[in-house]
C-alpha cells in the first residue's frame, strides 16, 4: 500500500520530464566535450544507419536512474556510468542483462565486461601540471602529496570513486600489487597531510579551468581533459607515472521500453570504428581490441592503454563491493 503510494508520487514527479517519443532512443551521459564526442562518434552514425533517432540527455544521475527503475517509468535507454557503479547496480537488479548475440563481446576488453555492462571508454588518472605557472612539476604521486617540495594548491576529483585513495596509498609507498584491499586508514592519513591544500574538482570542465588559471597549478586529472587543454594552447605537462586506470561503462536500466534498440546501440558504440573515432576526438582509449589497428600511429601512442608499463588498474570489483562504505567515509572525511 505505502509502496504503491511512494511509487505513484515519484512517477508523478518524474513523469513529465521526458520529451522523447517511444520510437526514439535516449542516451544519457555526463555532458560536456565527452558527450559531444559520443554523439558524433556513436549516435550520429547509428542514426544514419538504422534510422533510429538518438536523443541526448544528461548528466548521468544515479538517484534519477534508481527512481525511474523503481517507478517503472524508465526514460533512459542507454546510460554511461562509472565502472564500479555498473558492477554494483547489475548485482542490485537495476540493470537489464546485455544481449551478447547482438553485441559481439569477443572483441571487447574483458576487464570491463560483465553480464550487465560493457566498457564505454577507458581513461587514466594522471598527474597534470601547468608548466608556465610553477618552476618544477610533480612527477609522481609522492611528489603531488608533498607540499614541502611542491607548495601550493593541488586539485583532485571530489566524488568518492576509484582514483584518489589509490593515489594516496601509492604516494605513501604501497606497492601497486598490494593496493587491494585498500588500507583506508592509511589513505586518509596521507590525505590529511595535504587536505588544506586541496581544491576539489567536480567535473572535467572545472578541472581544466583550475589548471589553466593556475588556481591549482597541478593535480590529478582525467587524461583526456589534459589532451584537450593542451590543444587550446596551455602548456600542460602530463606524468603517466603509475597512472590509475578506470573505465566508464554502458548499461541499460531495467524496464526500458526500447531494449532491442538499446542493444543495437551498444553494439554500434562498441564497434572498432566507433571506438576509434571516439578515441581520436577525446584522448581516451578504445575498449574494442580491434580499434588500434585502424588508428593513426602517433595518436595511438598518446592514449592511456599505451602507458601500461607504469599503469595501475583500479579494481572495479573491490569498489563495487565497498562503494557505499567508502563513500560514506569519504564524504564524512571531506566535511571534517
Amino acid at each position, binding site marked *: 500500500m505505502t509502496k504503491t*503510494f511512494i511509487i505513484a508520487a515519484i512517477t508523478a514527479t518524474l513523469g513529465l520530464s521526458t520529451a522523447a517519443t517511444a520510437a526514439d532512443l535516449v542516451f544519457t551521459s555526463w555532458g560536456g566535450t565527452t558527450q559531444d564526442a559520443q554523439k558524433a562518434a556513436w549516435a550520429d552514425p547509428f542514426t544514419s544507419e538504422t534510422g533510429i533517432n538518438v536523443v541526448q540527455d544528461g548528466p548521468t544521475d544515479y538517484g534519477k536512474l534508481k527512481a525511474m527503475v523503481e517507478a517503472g517509468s524508465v526514460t533512459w535507454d542507454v546510460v554511461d556510468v562509472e565502472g564500479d557503479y555498473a558492477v554494483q547496480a547489475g548485482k542490485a537488479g537495476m540493470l537489464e542483462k546485455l544481449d551478447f548475440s547482438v553485441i559481439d563481446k569477443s572483441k571487447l576488453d574483458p576487464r570491463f565486461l560483465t553480464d550487465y555492462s560493457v566498457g564505454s571508454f577507458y581513461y587514466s588518472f594522471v598527474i597534470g601540471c601547468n608548466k608556465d605557472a610553477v618552476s618544477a612539476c610533480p612527477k609522481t604521486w609522492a611528489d603531488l602529496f608533498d607540499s614541502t617540495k611542491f607548495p601550493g*594548491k593541488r586539485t583532485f576529483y571530489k566524488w568518492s570513486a576509484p582514483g584518489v585513495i589509490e593515489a594516496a596509498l601509492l604516494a605513501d609507498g604501497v606497492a601497486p600489487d598490494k593496493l587491494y584491499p585498500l588500507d583506508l586508514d592509511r589513505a586518509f592519513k596521507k590525505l590529511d597531510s595535504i587536505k588544506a591544500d586541496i581544491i576539489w574538482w*567536480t567535473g572535467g570542465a572545472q578541472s581544466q579551468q583550475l589548471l589553466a*588559471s593556475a588556481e591549482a597549478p597541478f593535480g590529478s586529472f582525467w587524461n583526456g581533459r589534459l589532451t584537450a587543454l593542451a590543444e587550446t594552447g596551455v602548456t600542460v605537462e602530463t606524468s603517466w607515472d603509475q597512472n590509475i586506470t578506470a573505465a566508464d561503462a554502458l548499461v541499460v536500466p531495467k524496464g526500458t521500453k526500447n531494449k532491442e534498440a538499446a542493444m543495437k546501440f551498444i553494439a554500434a558504440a562498441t564497434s572498432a570504428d566507433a571506438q576509434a573515432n571516439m578515441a581520436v576526438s577525446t584522448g581516451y582509449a578504445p575498449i574494442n581490441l580491434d580499434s588500434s589497428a585502424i588508428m593513426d600511429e602517433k595518436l595511438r601512442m598518446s592514449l592511456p592503454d599505451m602507458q601500461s608499463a607504469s599503469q595501475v588498474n583500479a579494481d572495479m570489483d573491490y569498489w563495487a563491493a565497498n562503494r*557505499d562504505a567508502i563513500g*560514506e567515509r569519504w*564524504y564524512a572525511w571531506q566535511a571534517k
Partner: protein
Amino acid sequence: MALLTEQDNITAVGKIRTVRSRNFALTVPALLLLVVFFILPVVALLLRSVMEPELGLDNYRALLGSTTYLKIFLNTFSVSALVTVVTLAIGFPVAWALAIMPSRWASIVFAILLLSMWTNLLTRTYAWMVLLQRTGVINKTLMGLGLISEPLPLVNNLVGVTIGMTYIMLPFIILPLYGVIRKIDPAILQAAALCGATRWQALTRILIPLATPGMVSGALMVFVMSLGYFVTPALLGGTANMMLAELIAQFVQSLVNWGMGGAAALVLLVVTLTLYAVQLRLFGTARMEGR
C-alpha cells in the same frame, strides 16, 4: 443603519459566504498543484526516511548521532547567520539611501538590483569564482597595487561562500526594508533634530526601531533561504564548509541512500517551518509585508 432588517443582514452574510467559497474555488488549481508536486513527494520522502533500509528511526539516529553530520548542521546555521548579518549590514544603508534619494536616481539603483536578480544564478556564481580566484581580477589588482604580495584566499572557503550568498540575498533584504523606511515620516527625524537629538541618536533611537519590522522580516527570509542553499556553497565553498543541501544531494545522487537523504531533508524542512512559524507568531503576515 437602524433601518437594516434582520433579512438584510442574513443576505449580506450569505453574500460574503458565496464570495468566500468562490474565492476558495479559485485557489483549487494552485492547491492541487501544491498537493501533487510538493506535499505528496514530501510525504513519500518522509516514508522513505523511516522505511529504508528497514522500518525504524535508524536514519535519524545515524544523522543526529554523528559528529560529522552535526558539524554540517551547525555549519549550515552559522553560515546562514553570518550571511544574514552581512546582508543586513550592507542592505540597511542601501535601503535608506534609496528611500531618501531623488526618485530618478532610485529607479536606476532599482534597475541594477533587479537586473542582478534576473540573471541566471549559475552565471552569477561562476562570475564570482572568476573574480575571487587566486589569479582573479581582485587578487591581481591588489598585487599590482603592491598591497599584498601573496594572493588572498577568497574562494573555496567561507569567505567565498559569504560573498557569493550575500550578493544573491541583498535584494531580498533591501526591498522589504525600502518599503518600511519609505513610510517613515521624514518630519519625525526633523522633529528629533529640533529637539536636540544627534544624528547617531536619530538613527539608533528613531530610524532603526521604526525599521525593525522590515529588518526582522527581511533577515528571517534571508536566513531561511540560506539554510537550503545549494549552488553557491557548492561552487564557492570548500568541502570543510559543506551545507545541509549539499549533504542531501550527496545522499540522493552519489550514495543513492534515499533513507538518509530523506531524513536530512526532513530535518531541514522542520527547522525551516519552525522558524517560519516563529516569524508569523511574532510579527504576523501584515507586518511582515511592511504594512
